[in-house]
């Protein structure tokens, strides 16, 4: 793992954290609550910010490793496409587990979460791809 991968993961993680706060914490908070079944005591209040930040960094590192080590992605647009695709699959898989194993996610909640994850993954992937290609001589 080189410095460029670490820098890309850091940039992607920050972008994802800010976008997640905007989308889940502000814009869609009430929608998410109304669309999914509510179970008393399920939501952590206040949330553990360090865990959310670390989560975003883990996913950004995942993307940066795949882009740099195997996919050869070094542009914003290529990162955007790959990030959207990977996020769709990961979010769909996880949300299906939540539908199967818990009482806190509806099918509509799953669909909305996958769409939001695609958008967030696209931005995350785009930022990571851009950083990986920044000032790189071909």
């Amino acid at each position, binding site marked *: 793992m080189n410095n460029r991968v670490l820098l890309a993961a850091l940039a992607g993680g920050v972008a994802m954290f800010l976008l997640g706060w905007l989308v889940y914490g502000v814009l869609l908070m009430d929608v998410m609550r109304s669309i999914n079944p509510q179970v008393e005591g399920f*939501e952590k209040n206040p949330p553990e910010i360090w865990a959310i930040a670390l989560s975003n960094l883990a996913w950004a590192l*995942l993307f940066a490793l795949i882009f740099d080590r195997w996919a050869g992605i070094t542009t914003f647009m290529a990162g955007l496409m790959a990030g959207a695709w990977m996020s769709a*699959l990961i979010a769909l898989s996880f949300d299906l587990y939540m539908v199967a194993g818990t009482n806190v996610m509806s099918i509509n909640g799953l669909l909305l979460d996958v769409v939001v994850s695609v958008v967030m993954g696209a931005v995350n992937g785009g930022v990571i791809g851009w950083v990986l290609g920044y000032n790189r001589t071909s």
Partner: protein
Amino acid sequence: MNNRVIWATLAGGVASYLLGWLIYGIILHDMSNMYGSATGVQRTDMSAMWALILGNFVLAYFLAHVFSRWAGVNTLQGGLQTGALLGFLIWLGVDLIMFGTTNIYSTTGLVVDVVTSAIMGAVTGAVVGWVLGYKRAG
């Protein structure tokens, strides 16, 4: 998507489902210190089993897609290592988000689930890698 990716997805999905049943359904079933303070979250009926099965196939497809399109993984050993890395990072991100925003997991549960997911990713990845390389001319 070629036939080899489809077969690898099917085999990986079945392996992941069976391993999940063994680990979560039997081995860790009574490990009560994995859970946080939230109650009533876990679904007690089997009505959404289809979602669990589909979730496993989606994740297997993610591995097959990355292995086949980008990483060039087509051996059991390569799939084991790459699957462990991807499984670890994917579920580290997912579990940290769940730990940070909900009361589902305890800290012990977080650690156990990430380790378990890395093992499941390794086994699923090994199956996917093996099928991708099965009878492939060198």
